[in-house]
């Protein structure tokens, strides 16, 4: 990124919102407990072709993130980051934890592609769910999770990587932005969710 563009981008939020008194999302949401993602009623389809809503995960702690199957670098790292969090959990909470990965790319990521991807990663089928939704709901979900993405001419998808922890009511409890980042906060909060 060219330094002067970065400077403009950094200056602008302050300029635009100084008078507005805006909090910076989503940190403030985390502090106030936030709102439940389960108000979103968009339909998704899982790796087995079954239609679900996010509501399905209510009552359990959830790690949710977004990816796409043909992503060369960041997405495999994302899966590996989530597995690392998983291994650091108290067994009692690990048993309950649901991992939800939603694709940016519903056109290419069919249930079959998602199913194969889940098999390739050799993750726990009872706890890991791979989902697709229409483009409109993908945008909404990305917006509530604070994930930016866009399709590029070469067919790849530029996106930020964010792992978000939802509490049992679906409210955002913690998030880690970027891959290979420390996830101590998420691990601590998850372990504290033990019943």
């Amino acid at each position: 990124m060219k330094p002067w563009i970065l400077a403009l981008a950094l200056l602008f939020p302050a300029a635009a919102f100084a008078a507005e008194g805006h909090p910076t999302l989503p940190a403030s949401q985390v502090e106030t407990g936030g709102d439940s993602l389960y108000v979103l009623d968009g339909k998704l389809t899982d790796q087995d072709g079954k239609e679900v809503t996010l509501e399905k995960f209510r009552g359990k702690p959830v790690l949710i993130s977004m990816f796409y199957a043909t992503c060369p670098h960041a997405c495999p790292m994302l899966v590996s980051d989530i597995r690392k969090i998983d291994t650091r959990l108290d067994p009692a909470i690990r048993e309950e934890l649901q991992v939800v990965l939603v694709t940016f790319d519903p056109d290419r990521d069919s249930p079959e592609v998602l199913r194969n991807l889940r098999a390739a990663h050799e993750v726990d089928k009872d706890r890991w769910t791979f989902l697709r939704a229409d483009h409109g709901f993908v945008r909404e979900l990305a917006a509530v999770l604070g994930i930016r993405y866009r399709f590029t001419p070469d067919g790849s998808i530029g996106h930020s990587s964010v792992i978000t922890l939802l509490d049992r009511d679906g409210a955002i409890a913690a998030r880690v932005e970027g891959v290979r980042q420390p996830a101590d906060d998420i691990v601590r909060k998850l372990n504290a969710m033990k019943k």
Partner: protein
Amino acid sequence: MTRRVAIAAGIALACAVSASAASSAAAAGAPAGSSKAAADAKAPAPKAGDMVKVAAGEHVPVYPPSPEEAVIPMKAFELDRLPVTNRDYLAFVTKHPKWRRGRVPGLLADHRYLEHWKGPLEIGAEADPDAPVTRVSWFAAKAYCEAQGKRLPTENEWEYAAAASATSPNGRSDPAFTARLLEWYSKPTPKVFPKVARGEPNYWGLHDMHGLVWEWVLDFGSTMVSSDSREDGDPDKMRFCGASAINAGDKDDYAAFMRYAFRSSLQGPYTVGNLGFRCAR
């Protein structure tokens, strides 16, 4: 470079526009002639929800996210002639109670959602019914458009349509046009916004693309997602999965830069006093 940033940021601090400046400037600057806009100006007054067709063409973004996207082929699309007004939005929340002030979850709109209205179903004296609705979140704007069988325009569509002056589909090479935009941007936000459609339409027949409020787009801020994240020394190195580099196009179009930067600072639930929207199809 530092000076450029300072200039742009200084203008950004004002970060608002004035319709009175818009209409007077448009009146002063739009030559009479046989342009599409001039023909449209004689047409009946535009009504809420009226759409115009924006023809296919090539969009040259002022802020191409990668070298491959310096020229973007655009398909034809339709765009609302006017920004959505308070009156239009009142009809929407009347029909869709879940989007009334006080009922929208904080996840989808922050606490200042429609705060300038007198009540959840009453516009009141702080807003003109025929002025653009503002203080609506992206989620709310998206829901409004979908309820009309429409959608929000993409950033490329909006910028492509907004590049038109009164007489040309691309007014960006016209110094008078770009200077006028910056002049608008430097005016403070009025306490109560004026009515829509007071000035002349642009080449496509669109009113108030500039000069009244900023507008939401479907993919706000996504242009900034463009770094080659795996490049050494990039602070965004581990944040993005992507393959392109930011390359500014026409660095003199500060107004467009400001719009891109503003949009990239937004989040879906934000509501802003000078940010409205219109729909596309």
